[in-house]
């Protein structure tokens, strides 16, 4: 997404194509086919399966990508959606970002399975286990499974092993549930550092390129932040819009009661 739209979403300004309706990290873009997530975990899995079934029925040649965390695999809707996609052979790739914590609850309390990808077999699709901190490995696996879906062979489940360095949110103190040494060990596998070392060895990256890139990105974010703020607040009256295609009489009345 354009950074101004993404930041506008977090700030709830008019730069947000979703018009300031959700808390941060719920960005959506119809233009880019980025579906609007709802906070209830795994509730997007059956809709993703349905969209993919529609792609198959309508023969559009599209592929759905559906991402979620390890905690999502405990929800009933996860199984309901993955199962339906499997039955229909829908063109979808389920991507689990397994960072081994659902807020504070560790993976070993989430499931008695050794991993997530093994669950693919129960739903008649292949499961893959990837080092999600390795950008190239992730790319090659995704390229294959997307092609598999596009060719009409069916869905896949890709488990990407990743890590969350910080707390779940600004209100989460992660030091109470995991040791610092664990966080530091994972930081050594950081994908940015690994990609940088890989490119440097090939002579395709150096300190000057790094500095230029950082300056460019800093400027991009500063501009986006300003643009997101300058777009201005969403008007109060917009609270009553987009509930339905037309604002019904009762909502018109409620709006009039509030705004006079």
């Amino acid at each position: 997404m354009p950074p101004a739209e993404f930041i506008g979403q977090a700030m709830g300004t008019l730069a947000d194509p979703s018009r300031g309706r959700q808390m941060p990290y719920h960005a959506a873009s119809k233009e880019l086919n980025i579906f609007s997530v709802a906070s209830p975990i795994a509730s997007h899995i059956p809709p993703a399966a349905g969209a993919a079934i529609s792609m198959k029925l309508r023969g559009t040649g599209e592929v759905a990508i559906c991402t979620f965390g390890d905690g999502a695999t405990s929800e009933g809707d996860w199984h309901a959606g993955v199962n339906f996609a499997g039955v229909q052979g829908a063109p979808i790739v389920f991507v689990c970002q397994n960072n081994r914590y659902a807020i504070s609850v560790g993976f070993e309390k989430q499931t008695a399975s050794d991993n997530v990808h093994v669950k693919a077999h129960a739903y008649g699709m292949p499961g893959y286990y990837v080092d999600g901190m390795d950008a190239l490995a992730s790319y090659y696996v995704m390229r294959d499974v997307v092609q598999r879906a596009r060719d009409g062979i069916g869905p896949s489940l890709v488990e990407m092993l990743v890590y969350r360095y910080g707390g779940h949110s600004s209100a989460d103190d992660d030091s109470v549930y995991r040791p610092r040494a664990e966080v530091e060990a994972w930081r050594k596998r950081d994908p940015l550092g690994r990609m940088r070392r890989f490119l440097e060895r090939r002579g395709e990256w150096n300190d000057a390129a790094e500095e230029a890139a950082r300056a460019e990105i800093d400027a991009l974010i500063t501009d986006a932040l300003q643009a997101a703020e300058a777009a201005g607040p969403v008007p109060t009256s917009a609270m009553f819009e987009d509930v339905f295609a037309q604002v019904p009489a009762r909502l018109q009345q409620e709006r009039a009661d509030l705004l006079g």
Partner: protein
Amino acid sequence: MSKMTMVQAIARTLDEEMARDDRVVVVGEDVGKRGGVFLATEKLYAKYGPDRVIDSPLSEAAVIGAALGMAVHGLRPVAEIQFADYVYPGFDQLVSQAAKLRYRSGGQFTAPMVVRMPAGGGVKGGHHHSQSPEAHFVHTAGLKVVFPSTPSDTRGLLKSAIRDEDPVVFLEPKRLYRAVKEELSDDPDDLIPIGKAVVRRQGDDVVLISYGGSMAETNRAADALVEQGFSPHVMDLRSLAPWDETAVLEAVARVGRVVLVSEAPRSASFISEVAATIAEELLDQLLAPPLRVAGFDTPYPYAQDREYLPGPARIMKAVQRALDY
């Protein structure tokens, strides 16, 4: 012209709408070769095949959630929940996903979908084949809720629901599925707008308001009142979200007495909302308090299936209280 029961009218309407618009698909448990457990999708599979009449796994979350995804992607799904009592595994899909999609995306994504579900008691089904869950859905912003009582209303409203741009919960009173036959129009575009009530009987003494399955008992009570020399004014709301406030307030303002009838449990029921609105708007024109005749605040019983339903005797008792007030 042809005479049809309500459930036959549903199958015919789905057929007409699928023929009109190839984006319309049916999805649910047993909707395919079986034609639905009540035969509401009878013969559709043979005519349209498995790509448009989709037998789902036994999962209401999958049925409603996948229907939402199909709608987002451009289809016009009509999902069937076998009994309204089984909607709860799919409740989050309706309430968190479908109802809020247009709003949470600022109008970028929409969910033009229908979720049909047979509801209500009187079929000896016990509490998990008899409930009336409409209040949950009326309470959820972003859902339209329809609950017709006749074959022709069912056809006209189902057409409107399928052509609507927003998610519609379409409740069907299962004890009336085969209760009466009615002439249906041959006009494939004979729509009944969502949100409009209909007057079943004109009268001056008391307004009787109901919808769905309880219309049957309400009409019987009205017949008995007429025999006793009274003049009841009977309204069938048909749509609960939005509901026809204008028509209700006009009728109640004119008559001054109102009895609301629904088999759904009384507490926080839909008719409580109607009664509260009447009280807020018309208190000084009322000749008696708005009275509710509702289902009891118990789970729906099996052995007392008929006693639970608000029948003509209970309705007439409330009417008498309104008249004597």
